[in-house]
């Protein structure tokens, strides 16, 4: 998915939409935002933005073209797709994207 932030950059992102049920998920959602806002390193995934509007819990990350290590170990990557299916599943449409508070990074 490509989204525009201002007019200058177009970036492919991965979007994780959390299940709205359960306190555990909400706790982990905010822990994720807190931790990733404290750290910055080439070997940690970058959080680009998030949405915590009403009951929406959405995280936006830099896109990782080769998926997870697990998919390579277990041979679960589809031929030439280059897309982690778990991430692909979470990609949402532009209507939802309008609800994002995109961090300026």
């Amino acid at each position, binding site marked *: 998915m490509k989204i525009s932030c201002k007019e200058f950059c177009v970036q492919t992102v991965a979007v994780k939409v959390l299940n709205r049920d359960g306190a555990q998920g909400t*706790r*982990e*959602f905010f*822990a*994720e935002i807190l*931790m*990733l806002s*404290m*750290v910055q*390193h*080439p*070997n*940690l*995934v*970058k959080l680009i933005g998030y949405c915590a509007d009403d009951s929406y819990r959405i995280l936006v*990350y830099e896109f*990782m*073209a*080769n*998926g*997870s*290590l*697990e998919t*390579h*170990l*277990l*041979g*679960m990557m589809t031929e030439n797709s*280059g897309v*982690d299916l778990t991430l692909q599943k979470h990609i949402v449409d532009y209507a939802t994207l309008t609800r994002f508070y995109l961090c300026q990074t």
Partner: protein
Amino acid sequence: MSDLAEGKEPLEWKTRMKIAEGAAKGLEYLHSSRDTPIIYRDFKSSNILLDENFNAKLSDFGLAKIGPKEGQEQMTSRVMGTFGYCAPEYAATGKLSTKSDIYSFGVVFLEIISGRRVFDTSRATEEQNLIDWVCSATKLVHASE
């Protein structure tokens, strides 16, 4: 030997070591970049993401925890994590330290070099648990020396 689907080429050794090194650097940063370390608690192969050049990046910090405080080596915490990757002493006692992450790194490293997942019920009973299988193989090597 590996769990790879038929006809699928395994990752090259060089790529595997690059992934292991990148993941280790990410973990080291979490442990040592601040006065109080961050304990990741969920180091596993599905949380290590790979960019277009196979650079490893750790993801999913929902279980990460800050601590223990300076001067202390461990803290007590409700046991969280993923079965198979979780350090046995943490699972048994709830005592958490950066070493718990290092154990998980060891498990992932074994997955990387063997191409096997930590648990695989499709294998023979004695080979279903990767850690047990490696330990028994190591004992055989020592016994033959």
